[in-house]
């Protein structure tokens, strides 16, 4: 059963602009998918439809075989607890420390406090922020804030991770770090969908690519060379090389 399935999904906004136009696709368990296309092609619309932040004008969206149209408003929070989301603008809670931002995701699901105390530092160590536990978001760089947001999205180990332009506000070297992190999450078995208009990065990474134009899917390639045995380090090395960024973070 695919983790995500779109069946002839259209989204026409109230003003008449087209978000998505009869898009159909399936994304299997453990896949890493790029959603690409120029600004305004419908990438964010697709992501927001998957979290039921928007409802489609036509067609069906299935997550793990469950039609989102059948999910009642009271069950939407349950759906979202199984989907990690990462945004271009991080969407952290400004009044909370790094620790509390990540902890909130666990408090929402009623996780016992002892588990929270164990899991939050663990995941923050994984994203490389163990020294910034008690900083507030505005005391962090963009890349660090995005790491917090990824930690928050992943701390529950959701089966599906969605990222909307996760590197859109970041410089190339920081972007690589973020993509590397997302890649590592994918390698734990989590299905990942990343919306981005950074075509260069996408082409170099050689993952499945779904391209949108004016809301329509115009390309869907399993862009070859999926390397199941590649380690995160190998992946990072390849990415650096192909994006023209040196190992110390200086452009070649």
């Amino acid at each position, binding site marked *: 059963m695919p983790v995500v399935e779109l069946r002839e999904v259209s989204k026409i906004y109230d003003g008449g602009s087209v978000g998505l136009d009869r898009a159909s696709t399936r994304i299997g368990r453990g896949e890493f998918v790029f959603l690409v296309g120029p600004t305004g092609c419908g990438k964010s619309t697709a992501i927001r439809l998957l979290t039921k*932040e928007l409802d489609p004008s036509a067609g069906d969206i299935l997550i793990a075989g469950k039609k989102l149209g059948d999910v009642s408003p009271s069950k939407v929070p349950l*759906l979202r*607890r199984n989907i990690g989301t990462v945004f271009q603008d991080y*969407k952290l809670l400004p*009044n909370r420390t790094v620790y509390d931002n990540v902890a*909130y995701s666990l*408090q*929402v699901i009623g996780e016992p406090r002892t588990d929270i105390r164990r899991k939050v530092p663990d995941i923050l160590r994984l994203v490389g922020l163990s020294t910034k536990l008690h900083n507030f978001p505005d005391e962090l760089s963009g890349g660090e804030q995005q790491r917090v947001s990824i930690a928050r999205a992943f701390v529950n180990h959701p089966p599906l991770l969605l990222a909307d332009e996760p590197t859109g506000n970041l410089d190339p070297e920081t972007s690589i770090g973020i993509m590397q992190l997302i890649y590592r999450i994918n390698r734990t078995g989590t299905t990942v969908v990343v919306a981005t208009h950074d075509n260069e990065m996408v082409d170099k990474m050689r993952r499945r690519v779904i391209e949108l134009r004016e809301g329509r899917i115009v390309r869907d390639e399993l862009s070859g060379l999926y390397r199941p045995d590649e380690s995160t380090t190998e992946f990072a090395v390849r990415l650096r090389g192909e994006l023209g960024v040196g190992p110390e973070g200086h452009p070649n």
Partner: protein
Amino acid sequence: MPFGFFLKEAIRGLSRNSAPALAALLTVMLTALVLGVFIPIVQATTGTANEVRDRVVVNVYVKDGSTEAERTELRTAIERTANVKSVEFISKDEGLATAREKNPAAFEEGAELLGENPLPDTFRVVPDDPGEVAGIIDRLAPKDADGVRVPSLAAIDEVRNKEEDTAKILSATSLVKILTAGLAALLIFASVALVANTTRLSIFARRREVEVMKLVGATNWFIRWPFVIEGVFVGFMGGVLAVLLLTIAKETFIDPLEDRFALLAAPETIDFGLLIGLLLLACIAVSSAGSALTLRRFLRV
């Protein structure tokens, strides 16, 4: 989730948004103060208006020479008439004494002229509803085909009330009542609107936060509880401050003047303890309900 978590969240919200929270608190305090002063005034005014309305009476004059049996029959008949609250018998002599008391000058020179007491024995009838006093007259002395009033019992000489006075009293007091009721309604509405609006502003500043909470899978009540607790706290603190100020004002300015201050001594004014209790409850209710209602808009993500 335990209550402790929501309480901590509320405290965090208040301390991190102290400016709007303080604004909401002061708004609650000021409106409660205004209401606390205004409610007793409205009540005293209405009470006074009601007292004045109680002066509307019907006089049933008893025919000279009617028998004791006829008088008893008349009294019973009056007591049985609809809208009659009480009946009082005023004898000729009592009537004269009262008249003399009211206007001693007129009696000084004219007493001899009058000769014997010209006043009749009278049943003074107080209506339940002064507005419907005409009905009592119609029952005791219905109009015949020519519009002349005919007494319905042998003992009745005449039935009348001071029609002009009655009309004036009724129209003036009902105007006072309508005005104060309208003013009270307006004030309460303005208070609720003001408090709700300040609360709105304080939540509005955090609408992005609420959206993020929804996106990470928080249920509506998970998000709402801390805000409601904040509202309860703000309402309580604002209410307590207002009550403190009201108490101080009452004890320093009003209590010493009480005997000289007819308005405050008026009957039917709300008990001070009840007043502050009500104010405090209203503050808490409006403030927390305001929080919860404002949130509704941002929870629809």
